[in-house]
């Protein structure tokens, strides 16, 4: 376990109350590069267990990018690169042991005697391949653009579950129904579960993807503007679900809807031009922002 308390990170500085033991996921001093373009500059994000953390900020400020770092989906693209640390339950998930782990261990043991480096840190880095899949199973993500798989509505949800568990038909039916109900989609699709997911409307597809993300029950669920194409009633139902899910999951949600953040988020971070300008309990951030930029944004003066 890495001791988070004694490293005085900027995150600690801007947090109002620091019960660090509750952190499930934390980004520390993360820089991110799309090739040569830097999109994130020293971003810190503490994510508390069983809480909803919202990210707000003007378009293009790096909210999606930050989410993509948290479950390392960016690693699919060779040109993209993150620097810093992302710690999930005490494990640094940003760095991986490429090959020859025994050699690395030897070297780090030698290094330790010379420089006093922490050998445990080496042990805790991720291994390539299956570990990356395991990380993404623990930190699930629903993307900004809806992306149903080319299969039926039912299978879209069952597919993710089948990767992890063998379920009977009845159990799977129940999982699918629960997930669809939670995503406020059940009533619309219950009669056509076996028609293609790609045949749904944009907003329905978005909810299908949320249902798919919920069904696999990740520890942390990253949602990138899950309500951007939804009507007010579906949005309200989805928000209800997220608040209810808090009991079992941890949620990080990107939203352009400030009221939505204010309604459901326990903590909110305001980002601007690739930096985390302010982070804290939602009420504080909206009612007593410390930064002028935050105040301008939450009062609607820009962005």
């Amino acid at each position, binding site marked *: 376990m890495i001791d988070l308390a004694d490293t005085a990170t900027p995150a600690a500085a801007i947090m109002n109350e620091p019960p660090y033991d509750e952190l499930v996921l934390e980004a520390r001093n993360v820089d991110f590069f799309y090739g040569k373009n830097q999109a994130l500059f020293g971003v810190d994000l503490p994510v508390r267990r069983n809480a909803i953390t919202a990210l707000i900020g003007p378009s293009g400020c790096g909210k999606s990018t930050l989410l993509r770092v948290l*479950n390392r*989906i960016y690693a*699919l693209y*060779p040109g993209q690169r993150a620097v810093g640390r992302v710690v999930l339950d005490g494990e640094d998930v940003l760095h991986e042991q490429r090959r020859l782990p025994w050699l690395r261990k030897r070297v780090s043991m030698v290094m330790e005697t010379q420089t006093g480096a922490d050998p445990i840190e080496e042990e805790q880095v991720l291994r390539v*391949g*299956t570990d990356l*899949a*395991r*990380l*993404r*199973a*623990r930190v*699930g*993500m*629903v*993307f900004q*653009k809806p*992306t149903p*798989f*080319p*299969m039926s509505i039912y299978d879209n949800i069952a*597919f*993710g579950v089948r*990767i*992890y568990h063998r379920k009977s038909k009845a159990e799977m039916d129940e999982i699918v129904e629960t997930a669809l109900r939670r995503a406020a989609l059940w009533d619309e699709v219950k009669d056509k579960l076996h028609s*293609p997911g*790609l045949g749904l409307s944009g907003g329905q597809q978005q909810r299908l*993807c949320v249902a*798919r*993300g919920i069904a*696999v029950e*990740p520890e942390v669920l990253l949602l990138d503007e899950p309500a951007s194409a939804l009507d007010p009633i579906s949005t309200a139902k989805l928000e209800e679900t997220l608040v209810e899910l808090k009991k079992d999951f941890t949620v990080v949600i990107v939203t352009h809807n400030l009221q939505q953040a204010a309604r459901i988020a326990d903590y909110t971070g305001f980002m601007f031009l690739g930096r985390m300008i302010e982070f804290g309990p939602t009420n504080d951030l909206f009612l007593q922002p410390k930064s002028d930029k935050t105040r301008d944004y939450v009062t609607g003066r820009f962005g």
Partner: protein
Amino acid sequence: MNAFNSGDEGFTPSPRSSAGDTASLRPPVRGAWFDPIFEYLCLSAATLLLASLGGLVISLAIGGWPALSHFGWSFFTSTTWNPVTDVYGAAGAIAGTLITSFVALALALPVAIGIAVYLVEFCPRAIARPIAIAVELLAGIPSIVYGMWGLFIFAPLFAEYVQMPLMMNAAPGSLAEKLFAGIPNGANILSASIILSIMILPYMAAVLRELLMTVPPQVREAAYGLGCTPFEVVTSVIVPYIKRGMIGVVMLGLGRALGETMAVTFVIGNAHGFPDSIFASGATLASTIANEFTEATGDLHTSALIALGLVLFIITFTVLALARLLLSSQKY
């Protein structure tokens, strides 16, 4: 096919500005006068294509008619092809064509999928491009080169290291002995199939790679985002995503294999009759035509060869039509 000529009556761009009153409100688009001409140019291009296709079928039918009427159904069912006695049956060549093509397809498809998936999903960008270009270049090699390579290099090696050991070790009287019977010179049905598969492999791999690249990155991300391993992403999401296109690739590969002439003619052994083992010499429709057309003297012989052409045309056409049918019946 008639999608081409739907333009002549089904859809006429209605020039509303000619109604008079709207013309004063909005000036006509500057290039509008060219529109009808453009439409007719496209129509005549389409008509030209259909006309030449029709002409081809008709002349094949007329040319092949003497043989077809002379032999009747036995032209398709008899395996006797004897220019000396002037008796012609196409069953052997039809079987040779279908067997070599399907075996080639079965051999090439898994490898082509492997190549394409590796290039798109796993290979580091820096070397993926050069390899992809190499694959495309391979696809462009003229088939006669494959044929020569097959005859001079592949066939002798195949005879020595595959055919001979198999024949030697087959127990007398066993099924294996029957299966492996033949002249051990490497010119047979199986080696023709292998050469064919090598030939269609780069072509199929190149098209499959293009197909894989059309999968939106978001779909891939979403699958990885659920915690899928690369294998699961490829088999469960990416391949289903392109399965329509895959059927197309299969059919294109098959179409190419069915009609391939030179590469096959070199290595199939050119023996008439139904191939009775995997190492039997054989012939295909295309190889028979290529081999005999210059020396066909009798009218009936020439007519029989043209009829083979007609049969090949019909088989290829059926394969493509089946592909269309399968594509349109896909649910997703």
